[in-house]
């Protein structure tokens, strides 16, 4: 019997990626989950089981903040799904129009905000919307809409929606690019065949292109979901760790940061912070699984 050859090259080629990924991703992730099972009592770290999660979900002072952050997170996600993705698809459809001039210019202009840092975006929009120095009030004044202007970022009822819109502005380029690529991959012959059958213009989009790009839309939705539930930077840059006014823009990311690292006089609590991080991980995991097994696997695919 011949001894099976050990294929060393597989291990050698995999090793760098596995090692790096394990040390910077997998190990910290599991260590964070482990940390959530401990609590500091009298300068000693003791194992407390799921006690931190019980506190997080059932202690009124914690659960109120947690549910508030989770609800805000869902609202943040909903705005992205309802505004960012339809606009992204519409822009892609326009850009893929063969007779559109300056398409490359529009494409770059819309995509550029995506590569900007959150800090720059947060700061720039804070200035634009500032009731004191901002250009928003004077621009609205110029078209006679001054009465509609409000200090949006400072009002409980508008702040989160405003920030979600800013985030939409920043990231609308991503769905646009993905859909644009999907639209370009639709063969001309198929559209021509449709034309012969009398499906043209808008009807061609709804009846031919949209069904073909549905898998891309699915991927975009799940990317949006993961990105939104991990969001932190924009809120932190614009509103600070207290996610004001009155926690109306507090999402899971800022809640976790505040708890983990502490804030002002509040000392950091790595164990409760890890518990929140664990809850975030679970929410995202469940969301992604629901999508993968519930929707993605049942989606109809067409061989192009």
């Amino acid at each position: 019997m011949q001894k099976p050859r050990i294929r060393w090259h597989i291990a050698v080629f995999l090793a760098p990626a596995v090692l790096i990924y394990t040390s910077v991703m997998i190990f910290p992730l599991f260590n964070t989950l482990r940390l959530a099972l401990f609590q500091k009592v009298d300068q000693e770290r003791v194992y407390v089981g799921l006690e931190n999660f019980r506190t997080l979900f059932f202690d009124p002072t914690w659960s109120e903040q947690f549910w508030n952050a989770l609800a805000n997170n869902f609202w943040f996600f909903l705005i992205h799904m309802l505004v960012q993705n339809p606009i992204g698809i519409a822009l892609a459809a326009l850009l893929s129009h063969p007779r559109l001039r300056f398409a490359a210019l529009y494409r770059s202009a819309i995509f550029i905000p995506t590569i900007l840092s959150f800090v720059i975006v947060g700061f720039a929009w804070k200035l634009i919307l500032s009731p004191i120095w901002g250009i928003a009030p004077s621009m609205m004044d110029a078209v006679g809409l001054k009465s509609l202007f409000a200090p949006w970022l400072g009002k409980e009822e508008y702040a989160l929606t405003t920030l979600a819109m800013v985030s939409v502005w920043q990231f609308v380029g991503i769905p646009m690019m993905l859909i644009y690529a999907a639209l370009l991959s639709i063969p001309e012959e198929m559209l021509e065949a449709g034309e012969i059958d009398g499906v043209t213009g808008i009807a061609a989009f709804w009846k031919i292109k949209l069904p073909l790009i549905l898998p891309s839309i699915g991927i975009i939705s799940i990317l949006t979901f993961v990105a939104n539930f991990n969001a932190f930077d924009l809120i932190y840059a614009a509103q600070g760790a207290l996610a004001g006014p009155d926690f109306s823009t507090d999402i899971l990311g800022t809640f976790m940061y505040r708890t983990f690292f502490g804030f002002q006089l509040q000392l950091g609590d790595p164990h409760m912070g890890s518990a929140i991080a664990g809850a975030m991980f679970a929410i995202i995991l469940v969301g992604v699984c629901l999508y993968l097994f519930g929707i993605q696997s049942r989606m109809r695919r067409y061989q192009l």
Partner: protein
Amino acid sequence: MKSKFMLAALAGTALVATSALAEDVTLTVESWRNDDLTLWQDKIIPAFEAAHPGIKINFTPSAPTEYNAVLNSKLDAGSAGDLITCRPFDASLALYEADHLAALDDMDAMDNFSDVAKSAWQTDDGSASFCVPMASVIHGFIYNKEAFEELGLEVPTTEEEFFAALETIKEDGTYIPMAMGTNDQWEAATMGYNNIGPNYWNGEEGRKALIEGEQKLTDEQWVAPFETLAKWADYLGDGFEAQTYPDSQNLFTLGRAAIYPAGSWEISGFNAQADFEMGAFKAPVKAAGDSCYISDHTDIGIGMNASTEHPEAAKTFLTWVASPEFADIFGNALPGFFPLSNAPVDLEDPLAKEFVSWRDDCDSTIRSTYQILSRGTPNLENETWGASAAAIKGTKTPEALGEELQSGLESWYAPQQ
């Protein structure tokens, strides 16, 4: 044989090294005040070294946001400096309890400080002090003198006069009456609630009663400041809800606002930015003749690493920090950070002088939420930020805010239960 020889040689070098150190001790100072690096290098260190030959000081600051974490890991690793700049309250108390900071009660120089000054660096029962108080910041209001002259306004001393002045400025319309926003929330609590509040809860008396559980945040004296804050809203600029801290600073230094609810740390920045003459007044009292209280908040202290190799030299330095000579250098180099020692200090900056003069007429206290009360969850200080902002915006009633804060405090603080 060989290893014994090596040991002897090592011991020999060690001896040589210690004897060299005995001649010239170098003390390393840990600090988050990297803004003060030139002050230490040009003024404080030369002055100390001139008077104390044989002791050298090495000032090694780190970034303010990283200081606590950096210091903790250095202390755990045993590589921290001999002298440690102390954050006020719980951060330093935790270091003392972990035996990283030495008790300093046996130092005579500690008698140069009042109890309020020492309160930020003491155990809860006040039995042990572990840092020499260096500086405090005082709250009050800075105003645009030219605007006040233009409108014929007098400096208000009572609340009635204060609101009358605001009303006059508002009617005139040239200036925004008061520059403050609620976007960042902390100004509302720090420059609002804890600025005017001590006059309501009688300074230390109320603050201590709250800690002991004799008063509640729902009591009249703790709710009334919120009622007063609610009246501020009419006199803040348009869109104050989204106005940030730098916005407010700029509005005032550009001469667009007449009054700025302030902490004294603003002084050097404002001196550099504003091209008009500024004055300051303390938080107005309710009725003329009432005794006044000011928030004279302890902010910086300095202590000794419990495992330092040169405790004597370190104590020599700390004694000097407690002396009037240090207070004089520090107070004048950083107008707005006031030395805490009982010895009078001659300040040159007129605005700083005005602030510090209130210590003569009024009783000092510190911010009500800082000692002990912000140790649990929910954190009273952070809650007070939100509550003060909500009071100004009028989104909640003062009574509801008092109840919210009280129930939060009661949930973890035994004396209030």
